[in-house]
């Protein structure tokens, strides 16, 4: 059978991926430049018996998605800049209450209302630290339309596997860019579904099996009648003020991610085998970096590209290795150096870490990036 080839925006590919991953519920609030995700979800979900609802605000947009997830369906919400700020409290709720959920943030220029139709990558630290308190975070970032499709599927799978909110952090570049994309058959897509308790079993909502970190998740209405709260809770799910209990819970939540870095972390390397210099770039900006690296290679410069696909957890170990083996790392991103700090921290002084970025709503062009790179030569 002929492959389904389409010419899609990143935002549209996100919805295609979500549907393939099993999304049955979308709730959100209109905001540029993410709105196409809501529009296409509104059209497609009822066609497959799923549900779409435009809520009264961003906060309700994520709240309804969490509620839906508790009934056993896969849920997503999407937003941009200011909306991502508004959703933060409930992202923390989903992390603590262990509710699988995908949150898409199509980054735009900030702070505040900023530059609503322009690209930025200023929310990478917010994706990790936006909600209060220590909490687990998984955050993925694509650099193409096809990868937006793939990472949306992956975001759902990771959310279900680790019972945690997963942030798909795209940007106005990848969100609105159109590319030819071959949509895989459903049978080619690996789909992970949350593990449910056996019907009739003695269920403790937050009890984990020996050696496991993720509790089984019953759906509301299936007969288990359990309690979900944003308070610290014990393995039964009911609130507990015990500091010893809180210690066990928060450490388990963090360990879900920290003990599974190999499964969660993904990155792309280009020309890294013999690289003496490295450009570190991600998301829409990685497209510029790829062009620059190819041009420099044509000139005989031994430069490679490192592109994190998983931003959080940060691919710290690999960056540390790279830092010990190269002369220089140039970090480029559409902000004033948010992940540059992470790269610096990871290389631990083994090599210089330079930076080229801006936050004025323009993309970084190959011409300016190559000029910045040449300063080291």
């Amino acid at each position, binding site marked *: 059978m002929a492959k389904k080839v389409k010419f899609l925006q990143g935002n549209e590919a996100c919805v295609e991926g979500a549907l393939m991953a099993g999304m049955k519920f979308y709730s959100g609030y209109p905001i540029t430049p993410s709105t196409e995700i809501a529009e296409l979800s509104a059209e497609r979900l009822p066609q497959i018996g799923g549900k779409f609802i435009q809520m009264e605000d961003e906060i309700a947009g994520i709240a309804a998605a969490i509620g839906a997830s508790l009934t056993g369906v896969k849920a997503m919400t999407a937003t941009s800049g200011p909306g991502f700020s508004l959703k933060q409290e409930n992202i923390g709720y989903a992390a603590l209450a262990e509710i699988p959920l995908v949150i898409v943030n199509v980054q735009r220029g900030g702070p505040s209302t900023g530059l609503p139709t322009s690209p930025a990558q200023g929310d990478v630290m917010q994706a990790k630290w936006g909600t209060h308190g220590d909490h687990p975070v998984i955050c993925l970032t694509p650099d193409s339309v096809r990868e937006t499709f793939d990472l949306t599927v992956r975001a759902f799978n990771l959310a279900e596997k680790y019972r945690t909110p997963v942030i798909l952090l795209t940007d106005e570049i990848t969100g609105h860019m159109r590319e030819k994309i071959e949509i895989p058959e459903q049978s080619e897509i690996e789909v992970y579904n949350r593990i449910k308790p056996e019907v009739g079993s003695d269920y403790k909502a937050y009890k984990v099996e020996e050696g496991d970190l993720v509790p089984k998740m019953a759906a509301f209405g299936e007969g288990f009648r359990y309690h*979900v709260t944003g308070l610290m809770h014990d393995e039964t799910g009911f609130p507990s003020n015990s500091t010893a209990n809180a210690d066990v819970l928060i450490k388990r939540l963090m360990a879900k991610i920290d003990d599974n870095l190999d499964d969660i972390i993904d990155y792309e390397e280009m020309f890294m085998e013999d690289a003496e210099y490295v450009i570190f770039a991600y998301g829409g900006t990685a497209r510029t970096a790829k062009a620059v690296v190819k041009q420099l290679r044509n000139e005989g410069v031994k430069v490679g590209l490192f592109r994190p696909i998983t931003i959080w957890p940060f691919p710290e170990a690999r960056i540390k290795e790279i830092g010990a083996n190269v002369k220089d790392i140039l970090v480029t991103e559409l902000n004033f150096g948010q992940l540059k700090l992470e790269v610096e921290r990871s290389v631990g002084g083994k090599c210089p870490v330079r930076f080229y970025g801006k936050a004025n709503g323009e993309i970084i062009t190959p011409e300016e990036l190559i000029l910045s790179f040449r300063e080291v030569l």
Partner: protein
Amino acid sequence: MNSPLVENYFRVDKFPHIWCPGCGHGIIMAAMGRAIETLGLDKDKVCIVSGIGCSSRAPGYMDFNTLHTTHGRALGFATGVKLANPELEVIVVAGDGDLSAIGGNHLIHAARRNINITTICFNNNIYGMTGGQYSPTTPTHEKGTTAPYGNIDRPFDITQLAGGAGATYTAKTTVYHANQMQKFIEAAIQHKGFSLVEAISICPTYYGRKNKKGSVVDMMNFLKDSFVDRKVAEKLPPEKLEGKFLMGEFVNKVEPEYTALYDGIIERLKK
């Protein structure tokens, strides 16, 4: 010995509850339990959702699918639960501040959509959990810890607010009128659409003490003497209604319900 009602519908191992002696909230929670028992609802198909505050701890004591969410957002979460699985009987428990201040936007829009959710507002006219600050229902001139010189805000009438926003069933009663409260909750649960029961509660610890309202018995007597059924009130001369508050059913009408309308779209697309 617990009564069969308590044994069957409450999580007795979670008692004692957190509420202060004399708090009215237990009366409302009990009325909810009796209403659910009387209606014979399947416990596995009932979902009780709350936000943050004294009243929002009620779901933890009730033996259903229970969801204790973030401050003000119970109706947002509940909307997701109900739309994703309309078979569930979704009941929201919310305090006056939770429902009409931080959650006010969700209240008016849930009412506007006419989604089949029953909301029980535990209205004690104060923020109790945080220690007695004035709320959107604290009467003008009354005191709270953040209104030491008297409240200059005008209070909301939550029942009228919900009705104005499109709720298709609204009723107001008090913790003195516990039997009437049960009947209203039963009617609200059975109603197909957005329903709200405003249960006027008492907070002797903060509101009562701060405003010199006397003992718990005095506060209950105030509810008994001050609330008049709206139908009875229609026949009373104006002088007899001075200083009185109206209670009873205010709205009870049939309008298309949100999840049914959405299912209609799904059915239409199948053809």
